[in-house]
């Protein structure tokens, strides 16, 4: 019985430590990934390259600022890297207003990075409104994942 418990415990540890923690919302990544430093993969897997927003909101949560703080450090490490911030909305909105809201979300991220010392000329923004969901389908969980700002190397 102890042996089985031990095996199950070990499996649980393996599963939990290797799980990409996307479901907590902010791509906090897995520090032991094999991505080359200073690449998009590095950003996505080790730092976290997206933040999520509440419905109709563009304010940054504490989870979001935690991710962005790591991005600040990373951008300071790689001064030659410029980034594009994409702002997105979920599908449960109207076309034109969502283009504006996506732009506002992208700028919320840019403004934060700039406030932490990143040179504004390194950061571009773009809005995709509701036109580029990352997760297809329906329901509050899906929509929550689509209300996001994504940072990509430019």
């Amino acid at each position: 019985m102890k042996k089985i418990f031990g095996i199950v415990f070990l499996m649980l540890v393996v599963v939990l430590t290797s799980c990409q923690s996307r479901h907590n919302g902010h791509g906090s990544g897995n520090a032991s990934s094999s991505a080359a430093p200073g690449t998009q993969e590095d950003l996505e897997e080790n730092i976290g390259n997206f933040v999520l927003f509440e419905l109709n909101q563009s304010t940054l949560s504490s989870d979001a600022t935690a991710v962005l703080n790591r991005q600040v450090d990373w951008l300071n490490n790689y001064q030659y890297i410029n980034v594009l911030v994409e702002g997105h909305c979920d599908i449960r909105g109207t076309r034109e207003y969502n283009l504006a809201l996506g732009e506002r979300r992208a700028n919320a991220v840019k403004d934060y990075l700039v406030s932490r010392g990143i040179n504004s000329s390194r950061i571009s923004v773009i809005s995709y409104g509701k036109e580029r969901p990352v997760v297809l389908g329906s329901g509050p969980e899906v929509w929550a994942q689509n209300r996001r700002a994504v940072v990509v190397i430019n």
Partner: protein
Amino acid sequence: MKIRFFFLLLGMYNATFALTKVDITRGHVEPLPIAISDFLGDKHIASELRSIIINDLEGTGLFRVIAREAYIDEVNIDKTPTFASWRQINATTLIGGSVSSKERNVGFKVWDVFAQAEISHEKISLTNNNIRKVAHKVADEIYKKLTGEDGYFNSQISYVSLLKDDKGRYKRRIAVMDYDGHNHQFLTAMNNKIVLTPRFSPDAKNVLYLSYENKLHPKVREINVNTKLSHEVGEFNGMSYAPRYVDDRHALLAVAKNGASNIHILDLATMKQEQITFCSAICTSPSASPDKTKIVFNSDMGGTRQLYVMDYDGKHQERITFNHGYYSSPVWSPRGDLIAFTKMLPGKGFFIGVMRPDGSGERVVARGWLVDGATWAPNGRVLMFERENGPDKGVGIYTVDITGHNERRIKTPYEASDPYWSRNFDPE
């Protein structure tokens, strides 16, 4: 005693004679039965004219064309019809005509069967390739005589055609077509670049739309329907979007920059632009009144998405929506009397509605899982919009009367969104 059965449907009654009329704002009415006899002359042209006219009139939901097999008499446009034969099959209205290949025109008459009166007589020039336009013009004339409203059958639609790739993502193209789906053509190529909200110029020669073809800089472009050549319009710091022509060479649009959106007027000839709102919030989706004195727009400056009206120069902004819900996508009717909009009620879905420009008289005309993008028929009595009935159910464009009745899907080659309805034209 003559059975005046159809007088239940009449809007106007005169003591000496009654003219058949349909009140199209009254809500659900039984379609008015009418008869269209075969036009004399070229049988092929006559047949094509008849089927287009029937499609136009029956598509309004207001008329029912009695089947040809039921007709017990014929019509010669040069003679007075035997009205009794047409009363016998319950036709309220009779149309007859002739195609003259020699004179290159189509002549037609409309008779009120009960009043036994000729109520219209027109001749329209026929060229080699305007048969559809001539048919639409005949239908316009019949519609006008019987409803008192202008017809809309010689109008066009611009819209976004969507095709899903094998990953379930959309490829979009700008497309234009006659309002009945004929003469469909694509204006942009099939690729992954997002294109949105195409809107015709009043002369329908050009279309303004939002394009992501300049990769990091989504901007409004203008494309010529004939040449398919396009160019960016104006030089804006930020994303230009939400374009609408005010006339053939002026447009309203919004510009998003630093987290705010504001409204600009653009002279398309000089590319000079003027910013007319100075929101720190989102002020977007401008739509001008037909007399160009006012603009309705969408803003969350008060905290939630609402509709505002301001003077054309940007002064005197006034909120007009105060009911429960989030309002957006406003569009002013070409009649000037109503504004159509999209409303979202959390937990209840989306609605297309109309209201007076002061915000009063709000009415729902369509509802669904996702409905948006209302556009007005040129006579201000029909709306077109996009509808999705659920996730993965696809998106299509639909028309509905402003009474909320007679909703119909518009046939398109693929999925469709972002419709825009042009004005009505005369055949050349």
